[in-house]
């Protein structure tokens, strides 16, 4: 134990960081909490953007640059680098949906999603991939998506990569990521370095709890400050309750002010604009549309919701892994991803960071065994597989429903098709972990023992029982629910993001993806929002 007490972070102190938001407030940016407005306040703008994550943040900068008067609405609070103390407790409470406790209806999927100014971009692990070519081809063929081939999208991705500093990570991977690289190399599998959206990264490892050095190029430190600098307005702690509609037009948005506990204060605000952009993500966006009773002749709102259901395995190493320090994701493998596009489910392999609270949940279980497992933390490595859902007829995704109070319920089930991928992914990851020198491996399933050799794991993993809530399925990627495409019986928005059944509503976020992406989705959202925001500027200017 004395050994543990003496250890300290690789970088012991973070100091000397300027907070761009606090500076901006001093400089007179127009931003405030909805709770500061009086009841029944009326706000107006040229464009309202609901949500300030990857889609909303990107659109805000482009529309403001074009000279439009933009109002951003965000249900989460405003937190910035001086608030980011690398403490899980504060981060989950302040910046995650449901304090990182968001779950599917039957409790079997845990969902990490942002809820703050900047959205999930403030708490993601920085992996930035262009939408895979196979995915874009599948959308064109199956859903009639137009103008979004790899070649057509390339300039938009390039523009956002430049804007957000996306480059393959130049520093050596931390031990947690090195296991994936070493295991893949040993077995002769493909692996690559992950492109990250960072500038001047300190390699601390705390991307998931708010970057304390502002190195992560989230919306919070890039596009949102740029829009505010040019006069855009931001209203936070402001939940969009419903769209106010008349015929085929959205007239405005009814907003509810939220208190520090994320509960409605009873204060209502109305925001009006001739154009409204919905960028509230794949759970809250469809829920808002359902609450608003938006036109939906084919009952498609909230259908085909995808999550990259994510499986976990753990490995114990003799040496320290310290899986909470260093860039959380720097190596990936697509070896098992594209053997077939529409056949048995493919998966991307990455690693997660393991701060202690998060690790204790993933280790799943209770009592002496669970305590023994958590005590191994400094020597633990974990690998994850992101299952590419939505490409096969057996993978129709989940659906968003409304609770009694209008909040979303996420109904998503792991079926036999996905379970096959769960087991294959556990096997792939355990094999790589042993190849990289692990002493023992365990999968995130309550019945899983520690396996002490690849032979043991190969025999034991397929015997683990398929029963809900016995194993961890996580997700940090919410996609779908308002599919994009020209086939109106299956799709709700056109290839430029305009809602088919309303004349002035645009959807610029991950909810328009007709399947999952097959890679961490942030750059897919940036690129698409960048393209569609520029098209919207043209539409508005030509009107």
């Amino acid at each position, binding site marked *: 134990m004395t050994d*543990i007490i003496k250890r300290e972070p690789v970088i012991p102190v973070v*100091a000397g960081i300027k907070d761009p938001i606090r500076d901006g407030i001093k400089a007179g940016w127009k931003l405030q909490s909805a709770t500061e407005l009086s009841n029944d306040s009326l706000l107006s703008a040229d464009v309202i953007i609901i949500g300030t994550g990857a889609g909303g943040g990107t659109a805000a900068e482009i529309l403001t640059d074009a000279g439009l008067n933009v109002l951003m609405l965000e249900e989460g609070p405003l937190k910035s680098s001086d608030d980011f103390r690398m403490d899980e407790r504060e981060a989950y409470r302040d910046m995650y949906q449901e304090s990182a406790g968001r779950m599917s209806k039957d409790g079997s999927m845990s969902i990490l999603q942002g809820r703050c100014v900047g959205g999930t971009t403030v708490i993601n692990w920085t992996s930035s991939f262009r939408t895979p070519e196979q995915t874009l081809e599948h959308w064109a063929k199956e859903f009639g998506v137009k103008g979004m081939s790899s070649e057509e999208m390339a300039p938009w991705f390039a523009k956002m990569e430049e804007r957000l500093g996306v480059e393959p990570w130049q520093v050596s991977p931390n031990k947690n990521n090195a296991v994936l690289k070493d295991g893949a190399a040993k077995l002769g599998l493909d692996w690559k370095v992950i492109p990250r959206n960072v500038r001047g990264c300190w390699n601390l490892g705390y991307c998931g709890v708010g970057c304390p050095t502002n190195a992560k190029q989230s919306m919070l430190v890039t596009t949102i400050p740029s829009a505010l600098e040019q006069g855009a307005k931001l209203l936070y702690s402001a939940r969009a309750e419903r769209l106010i509609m008349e015929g085929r037009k959205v007239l405005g948005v009814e907003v509810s002010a939220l208190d520090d506990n994320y509960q409605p204060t009873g204060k209502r605000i109305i925001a009006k604009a001739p154009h409204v952009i919905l960028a509230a993500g794949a759970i809250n966006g469809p829920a808002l549309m359902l609450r608003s009773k938006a036109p939906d002749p084919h009952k498609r709102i909230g259908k085909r919701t995808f999550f990259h259901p994510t499986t976990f395995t753990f490995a114990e190493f003799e040496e320290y892994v310290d899986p909470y320090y260093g860039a959380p994701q720097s190596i990936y493998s697509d070896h098992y991803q594209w053997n077939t596009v529409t056949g048995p489910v493919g998966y991307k392999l990455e690693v997660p960071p393991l701060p*202690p609270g998060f690790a204790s949940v993933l280790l799943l279980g209770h009592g002496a065994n669970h305590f023994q497992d958590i005590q191994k*933390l400094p020597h633990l490595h974990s690998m994850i597989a992101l299952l590419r859902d939505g490409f096969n007829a057996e993978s129709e995704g989940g659906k968003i429903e409304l609770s009694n109070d209008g909040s979303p319920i996420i109904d998503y089930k792991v079926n036999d098709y996905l379970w096959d991928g769960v087991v294959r992914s556990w096997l792939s990851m355990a094999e790589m972990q042993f190849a990289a020198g692990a002493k023992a491996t365990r999968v995130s399933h309550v019945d899983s023992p520690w396996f002490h050799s690849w032979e043991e794991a190969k025999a034991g993993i397929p015997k683990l029982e398929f029963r809900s*809530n*016995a194993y961890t399925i996580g997700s940090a990627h919410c996609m779908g629910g308002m599919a994009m495409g020209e086939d109106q019986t299956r799709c709700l928005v056109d290839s430029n993001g305009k809602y088919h059944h309303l004349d002035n509503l645009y959807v610029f976020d991950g909810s328009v993806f007709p399947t999952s992406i097959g890679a961490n989705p942030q750059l897919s959202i940036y690129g698409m929002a960048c393209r569609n925001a520029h098209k919207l500027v043209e539409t508005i200017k030509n009107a």
Partner: protein
Amino acid sequence: MQKITTSRRGFMQLSATSAAFLAAGASFASLTGCTKAPVASGYKVLRNTDFEFITAIAPVVLGGSYPGVLGPEKAPEVLLKAVDNLVVTLQEYAQSQLIMMFDVMQSAPLRVAMDAPWSTWPEATAEDIERFLQGWKTSMIPLKRMGYGSLVKVLAMCWYSQPETFISSGYPGMPKRELLTDQPIAAAD
């Protein structure tokens, strides 16, 4: 919605039908009816009755890490406050399911019907609680497995994110943070 009473007759009816009923995908709502105990003073969601349940199962769920360096006086309060802060931010569906599970835990007949200890929580032995947790973990009934998953995940998250428990996980901690100024966010007028 089926209204279950705590009378002997209600309990017998429940026992007779519970297995088939639960296996068919019941929710905690359908078990509990509409009991509403007042929220404990200084808390946002948890009731005094929930304290007994959570502090009884905590040493069994969290094994040797509880109460740890916080000690038997402080540990329950730290854990309960953290659970309260998490549960208050859950959206309506998840929060109501969890609260209704806590309601079930307050009724002896419902506890027995759900294979939890008959005795009150302060009187339940570690063996009783372990048997209950194991039963829910491996149950054929999805509702019980969901209950197990929610309980162990919520308690683990709330406990191991506390700096006082880092010594049990071996996490050396986060870097220290020194700010240029000490200024809360003040919105512009």
